[in-house]
């Protein structure tokens, strides 16, 4: 299965195509597509350039990235694995 991801134009944040062509931020809410439907949905996303910057397909198993870019897509969906490790200094 595949889903569609992109960066949002206004702030660059990771977004996905959700059900009914909605925009969702959580990979778990992304719509899943099969075969030709995925290509059609990609074209539909690309036709909304005011929202989706550089949309592309991601292979998933369930909602978990599984293709060649598994790691990259996992980091995109969950944020940097290093967190914002600096924050604690301010409360120190």
């Amino acid at each position: 299965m595949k889903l569609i991801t992109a960066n949002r134009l206004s702030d660059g944040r990771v977004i996905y195509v959700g059900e009914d062509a909605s925009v969702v931020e959580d990979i778990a809410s992304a719509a899943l597509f099969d075969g030709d439907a995925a290509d059609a949905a990609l074209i539909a996303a690309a036709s909304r350039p005011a929202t989706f910057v550089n949309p592309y397909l991601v292979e998933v198993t369930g909602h978990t990235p599984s293709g060649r870019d598994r790691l990259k897509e996992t980091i995109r969906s969950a944020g940097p694995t290093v967190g914002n490790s600096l924050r604690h200094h301010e409360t120190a």
Partner: protein
Amino acid sequence: MYRYDEFDAALVRERVEEFRDQVERRASGALTEDEFKPLRLMNGVYLQLHAYMLRVAVPYGVMNGGQMRKLAHIARTYDKGYGHFTTRCNIQYNWPALTDLPAILSDLAEVEMHAIQTSGNCIRNTTTDVFAGAADDEVEDPRPWCEVIRQWSTIHPEFSFLPRKFKIAVVASQKDRAAIRTHDVGLQIVKGADGGTAFRVFVGGGQGRLPHIGQEIAPAVPGHELLAYLTAIIRAWNLLGRRDNIHKARIKILVASLGIDAFREEVDRHFATLRQEALQVPAEELARIQAYFAAPAFADLPRQSAAFDRAVLADPDFARFSRNNVRRHKQVGYASVIISLKPLDGVPGDITDAQMEVVADLAERYSFDEVRAAYEQNLVLPHVRLDDTPALWRELLATGLGTPNADLVTDIIACPGLDYCSLANARSIPVAQALSKRLADLDWQEKVGPVRINMSGCINACGHHHVGHIGVLGVDRKGEEYYQITVGGSPDEQAALGEIVGRSLPADEVAPAIQRALDRYLEVRIEGERFIDTVRRLGADPFRDAIYAHEFANA
């Protein structure tokens, strides 16, 4: 510090307004991403994994307190409360919104900062010795020359669409503290035959996919002819450089394929005409710029500082800080202090807005309002009274900025890697963190002494892995992160590329392998020998054996 004149200020303002308009047109859909991309890149804006990234130029790494405060303000107001200092002495913000970028650039312009030429195929921010103007071994202060280069190269009409990016670094000492031989052009200030300023010029260095160490092309170009000579070099490359293959478009490829002698002839041909033209550096203009970099009003101080000596005796932690992070200064009674951005388990180069505010304050109070960005991803307060160092250290400690590890094994350079960068093959920050935790014992670190460990998340080499004494390069093996280790690289006046020791390792084996290599060094070094000197004496073999030793143990 250099101050903008009315032309500089107007230019930067105009660029901000131009970009504001471009952002509005992009946001409204009038510009497509393909149309917008080259425009945003001209303003240092990338689109990365999670968000836009803004790269702000810090000209030759020099800032004042007000500028640092503005960087803090930007981190707090438009980003997630931190910024990231890079090996190019720039600061990057990882999370700004596109629609905020014009406001950010406008804020920057208020303190004479911008993001022009921090990206794209142009002459990038010139870098220099972080101790410029303070080092006791420099021929003269290199910063005025960096400023000359900056004024000449900013929006230079001939060089705004080069075959690829072009990087210049300047040092003024025998010791190379700016890695000049890994730059497209490296300049070393020397005394010319007439006793005046001259430049020893290296060309064709660079890292990335096809790394090269720069070669000497001229021993002593007179100062007033510097710009003519630089123009000749870049013109020769602009005319002859390949544009058909992005990986072969760098000057290092041209120099390597022509050979340095043939390339020199090509440059000399252009130089012969250029030096006749009006491209001389006018003496009055140089003097005007130099006046901005005049030494601050140093006090007449004794060589010994009683306060410093007392603190060293009284507090072993301060003694350690002074051994590792305090450097000699040309002015008696003063020192330069390195602020490590490599706390235990931290992200190399990251700093919070609150920390930036403190650094700004410390620069104003203790260092004549000056702070520097080092290519090692640290900060430096260049001119601190020895008397003040204990108090300064206590304030740094209280802010999480007092880690006494400058140049030690945990002073790791690491690029953002796959945690932020869309070009990465693997993460680099977590590997740096694991190493930092494993090698944390400061007594042990001091015993090992200076070792430069550099990491990049891909072959582009933003983390300078090729020239790390130990280099770590992230590679992708069928979707798994692996790391290739090199040994024997060196960024300095004995610049060398590291040697790949063997097959790449999974992430969790990197730190133990490096620890074994360092343990081996402790066994085989001779008294007083630095790690890199031991590698030069014995070659990589003993370290290779140590790095892969566990395999034999398990066999």
